[in-house]
C-alpha cells in the first residue's frame, strides 16, 4: 500500500520536474500539489514541493510546505527565513515576523536575517523592535550607510531622537556622496532645530550635487531657522531655477518674502503658487492676506470674492474678505481695537474746591455767556432787530403827543413838552412790561439751552430779565440824547432818583417775571392773560395823565399799582417840584422785593417740573 503511494508520488514529482523544466509551470504546480498531498511526511517530497511552490509563486502553499519541513527538521534555521519570506509575500505579516525572528535569533550572526526581521517589523509599524534587529545587522556591517539610515529612521520613529540623529550623521559619514543619507540627516537635524549642522551638511551635499533642488529647499529652511532670511531666499531662488513648477517652493518663498516685509513680491509668489496648485485653500487664504498687506486691495477683493463664491461657508475666506473690505474702507481695525486696551492714563487735573466764591463766579460766567447769546438771538427773527426796541417807545410817544396835543391845546399836565412827559410814563411802563413778559417766555424759547448742564431755568429767566433791563436803559438814554438833539431840555434833575425808580420797577417786574415763568410752564395760556393785564395797566399807570387828575377814591386804589408809583417816582426825578403825596417809594421797593421773593421761591420749589425735554 505504502509502496504504491510512494511510487505514484515519485511519478508526480518526476512529471512536475519535467513539466517545470519544459516551461509548463501551471501543470508542474498541479503535479507538485498531488505529490505533496500523497506524501506530506516525506522530507524529500516536501522539500521539492516547497522549492517548486516558491518558484511558481504559490506562496501560500510554499509557506505551508516550509512549516511542514520545519516540523520535520526543527534545526533548519534557514527554513524559517524561507517561510517568513513566503508569508510576507501573502501579507501574513505576523507569521512572517515570527519566522523572521526565529531565524535571526537562532543565527544572530547573519546580517541578512537581522535585516529581514528589521524590515518586516518596520513594515508592521513596530519601530522599537525593528531598531533592535537593524542594530544587530548594522553591528555586523558597520560601513553600510543605507542600513544605518534605516536604523536611524526606526529609532527616530521609536522616539530615540538623539540616537537617531547621531546615526543619521554616521550614515552620511559612511558615504558623503549619498543624497538619500544626506537628505535624511538634514531632515532630522532640521526637525531637531539643529539648523547650523543641517546647513553645513546641506552645503556639502549641494557642492556634490549642484542640481539637487530638494537639498536647496532644505537649505533655505535651515537658513530661515538660522534667522538669515536673505540666504534662505537665495537658496529657494536657486531651487526654483532648477524646478520652477513646484508649488511648495513658491509658497515657501512667499512666506520668506512676507517675513522680509516685501508684501508685493510675496503676493506675486503666492500668485505663482496658486497658478500651479489652485485647489490649495490655505494657500489662497495666504495669498489674500499678502495682497492686503501689499495694499493691492483690488486684487485682494476680487480674489476674496472668487474664493467666497467657490466656498460660501468657508469662515477663513470670509474673514480674509472682511479684512480686505475693512482695509478698503480705511478702517484700521487694530487702531480701533486698541483704543481702550493699554491706554496710558494721566493724572486728572485738579479742580479747585467749590466754595461760595467759585459758585458765584460760575453763576456770573453763566449769566454773562447767556446775556451775550441772548443779545444776539433776541430779535433774530425780525430784520429790524434792535431797531424795534427803539421804535416802540418812539411810536408810543409820538402817538400820545399827537393825540393829546390836540386835545389839551398844547400843554402837558406837567413840564413843558409832551415828548418828555410821555417819555417819563412810557419808559418805566415798558421796562416793567418787557421784563415781566420777556421772562415768562424765557424757558420756552431757551428749551434746548437748558440741556447744557451749567444752565438752569433760573439762569435763563434772570438773563432774559437782565437783557430787558439793559435794552430799555440803553433805549432810555438814546431817547434822552435824541430829545437833547432836538433842543429840548431833557436831562433829569435827580439822576439818582431816576435810576432808583427804574431799578425798583425792574425789581418788581423781575418778581412778576419769575411768577410768569412758573405760571406759563404749568399753564400755556397764561402769557396771553398777562398780555391783557399789561394792556389794562397801560391805562392804570398814569402814563398819559397825572393821578392828580383822578378822583381821590380812584387814585387811592390806583396808588397800589407799582407801575404808577414807579412812573411818579421817575417823574419826580425829572420835574422840579413834582412830589405827589401818594408817592410811596418804600412801598414800591418792599412790594417789589416781596414779589421777587415769592417768584424766586416758586421757581426754586418747582424747578424740577418747569422743563421736561420731551
Amino acid at each position, binding site marked *: 500500500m505504502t509502496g504504491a503511494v510512494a511510487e505514484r508520488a515519485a511519478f508526480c514529482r518526476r512529471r512536475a520536474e519535467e513539466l517545470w523544466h519544459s516551461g509548463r509551470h501551471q501543470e508542474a504546480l498541479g503535479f507538485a500539489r498531488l505529490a505533496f498531498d500523497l506524501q506530506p511526511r516525506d522530507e524529500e517530497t516536501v522539500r521539492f514541493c516547497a522549492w517548486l511552490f516558491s518558484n511558481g509563486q504559490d506562496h501560500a502553499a510554499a509557506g505551508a510546505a516550509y512549516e511542514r519541513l520545519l516540523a520535520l527538521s526543527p534545526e533548519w534555521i534557514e527554513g524559517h527565513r524561507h517561510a517568513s519570506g513566503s508569508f510576507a509575500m501573502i501579507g501574513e505579516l505576523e507569521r512572517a515576523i515570527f519566522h523572521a525572528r526565529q531565524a535571526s535569533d537562532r543565527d544572530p550572526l547573519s546580517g541578512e536575517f537581522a535585516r529581514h526581521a528589521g524590515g518586516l517589523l518596520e513594515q508592521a509599524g513596530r519601530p522599537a523592535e525593528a531598531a533592535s534587529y537593524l542594530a544587530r545587522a548594522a553591528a555586523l556591517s558597520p560601513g553600510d550607510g543605507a542600513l544605518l539610515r534605516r536604523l536611524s529612521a526606526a529609532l527616530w520613529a521609536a522616539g530615540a531622537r538623539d540616537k537617531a540623529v547621531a546615526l543619521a550623521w554616521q550614515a552620511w559619514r559612511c558615504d558623503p556622496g549619498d543624497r538619500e543619507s544626506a537628505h535624511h540627516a538634514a531632515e532630522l537635524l532640521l526637525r531637531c532645530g539643529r539648523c547650523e549642522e543641517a546647513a553645513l551638511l546641506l552645503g556639502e551635499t549641494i557642492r556634490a550635487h549642484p542640481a539637487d533642488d530638494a537639498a536647496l529647499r532644505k537649505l533655505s529652511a535651515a537658513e530661515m531657522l538660522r534667522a538669515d532670511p536673505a540666504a534662505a531666499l537665495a537658496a529657494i531662488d536657486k531651487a526654483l531655477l532648477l524646478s520652477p513648477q513646484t508649488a511648495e517652493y513658491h509658497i515657501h518663498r512667499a512666506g520668506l518674502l512676507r517675513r522680509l516685509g516685501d508684501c508685493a513680491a510675496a503676493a506675486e509668489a503666492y500668485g505663482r503658487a496658486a497658478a500651479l496648485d489652485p485647489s490649495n485653500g490655505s494657500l489662497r487664504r495666504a495669498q489674500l492676506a499678502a495682497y492686503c498687506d501689499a495694499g493691492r486691495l483690488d486684487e485682494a477683493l476680487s480674489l476674496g470674492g472668487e474664493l467666497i463664491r467657490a466656498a460660501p461657508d468657508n469662515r477663513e475666506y470670509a474673514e480674509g474678505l472682511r479684512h480686505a473690505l475693512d482695509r478698503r474702507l480705511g478702517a484700521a481695525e487694530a487702531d*480701533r481695537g486698541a483704543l481702550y486696551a493699554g491706554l496710558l492714563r494721566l493724572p*486728572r487735573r485738579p479742580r479747585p474746591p467749590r466754595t461760595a466764591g467759585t459758585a458765584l463766579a460760575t453763576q456770573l460766567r453763566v449769566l454773562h*455767556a447767556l446775556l451775550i447769546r441772548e443779545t444776539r*438771538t433776541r430779535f433774530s427773527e425780525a430784520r429790524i432787530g434792535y431797531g424795534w426796541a427803539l421804535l416802540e417807545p418812539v411810536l408810543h410817544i409820538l402817538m400820545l403827543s399827537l393825540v393829546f396835543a390836540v386835545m389839551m391845546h398844547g400843554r402837558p399836565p406837567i413840564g413843558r413838552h409832551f415828548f418828555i412827559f410821555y417819555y417819563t410814563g412810557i419808559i418805566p411802563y415798558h421796562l416793567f412790561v418787557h421784563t415781566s413778559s420777556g421772562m415768562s417766555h424765557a424757558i420756552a424759547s431757551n428749551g434746548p439751552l437748558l440741556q*447744557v448742564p451749567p444752565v438752569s431755568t433760573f439762569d435763563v429767566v434772570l438773563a432774559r430779565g437782565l437783557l430787558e433791563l439793559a435794552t430799555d436803559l440803553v433805549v432810555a438814554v438814546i431817547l434822552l440824547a435824541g430829545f437833547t438833539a432836538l433842543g429840548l431840555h431833557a436831562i433829569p434833575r435827580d439822576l439818582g432818583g431816576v435810576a432808583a425808580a427804574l431799578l425798583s420797577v425792574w425789581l418788581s417786574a423781575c418778581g412778576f417775571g419769575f411768577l410768569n415763568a412758573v405760571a406759563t410752564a404749568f399753564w400755556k395760556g397764561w402769557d396771553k392773560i398777562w398780555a391783557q393785564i399789561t394792556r389794562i395797566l397801560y391805562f392804570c399807570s398814569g402814563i398819559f395823565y397825572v393821578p392828580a387828575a383822578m378822583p381821590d377814591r380812584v387814585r387811592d386804589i390806583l396808588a397800589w399799582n407799582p407801575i404808577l408809583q414807579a412812573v411818579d417816582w421817575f417823574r419826580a426825578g425829572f420835574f422840579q417840584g413834582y412830589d405827589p403825596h401818594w408817592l410811596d417809594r418804600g412801598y414800591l421797593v418792599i412790594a417789589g422785593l416781596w414779589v421777587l421773593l415769592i417768584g424766586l421761591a416758586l421757581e426754586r420749589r418747582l424747578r424740577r417740573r418747569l422743563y421736561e425735554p420731551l
Partner: protein
Amino acid sequence: MIALAGVSKSYRTRTGRKAVLDNVSIDFASGHNFGILGANGAGKSTLLRLLAGSELPDRGVIRRDVRVSFPLGFGGIFHGALSGREHIGFLARLYGAPIRATCEYVADFSELGEYFEMPVNTYSAGMRARLGFAACLAIDFDVFLVDEVIEIGDRRFRRKCAQAFRERMRRADIILATHNHETVRQYCDRGAILANGTLTPYDDIDTALRHYQSLSEGGGR
C-alpha cells in the same frame, strides 16, 4: 465720581407715569469707563441727562466732584441764527475756557471751513453733528457722556473722532449709553444695566454684556 443717592425720575406718558429710575443709588467711580446697557425706551438718554445735570431728578441727590460734559451726540443746543463761532464762544464762556483757543480748535477739528462763521441753520445735519462733537472735545471735561454715537461722519472723520477720544480718555472717563456691544467692549471696562427703573452695576463689562444679552433674549425683544 458721580454719586446717585436715592434718585427717582419718572415721566408722564399717555398710560400714566413711567419710572425711568426708581430709588437708584449707584457710584460712577473715577478712573473707570462705564457702558450703560438698556433697551430702547429704557431711559438711557434720561439717565445721561440726569448725570450731566441737564435734568433734575424727581427725588434724590446727584453729587459730582468732577466736571461732566453735556451728552455728546446732542445737537439741540444750537440756535439757528447764531454762527458756529458764536456757539463755541458761548460754551467757552459758560465753562470758563479760553474763547479764542477753543474756537480755533473747534474750527480746525470740525472742518467746517467758512461755514464756521455762518448761522447754524445753513448747516447740514452732519455739519451740526461735527460742530457739537468738536465743541464737546474742546472743553476740558473729566467725564464725557456719550449717547449712542461716539464716532460721526465718514470713515476718515470717524477715525479722527476715535483718535481724539483716545487722547481725551487718558485724562477723562466716559459713560456710554448704547446697545452696540462692539462699541461698549472697545471703550468700557465696567457696565450697568438699566431696566424697569433699576440700574444694576457690574464691575466687569463682559459679565454685564452677557447678562444683558440673556436678559434681552429672555425678554423676547
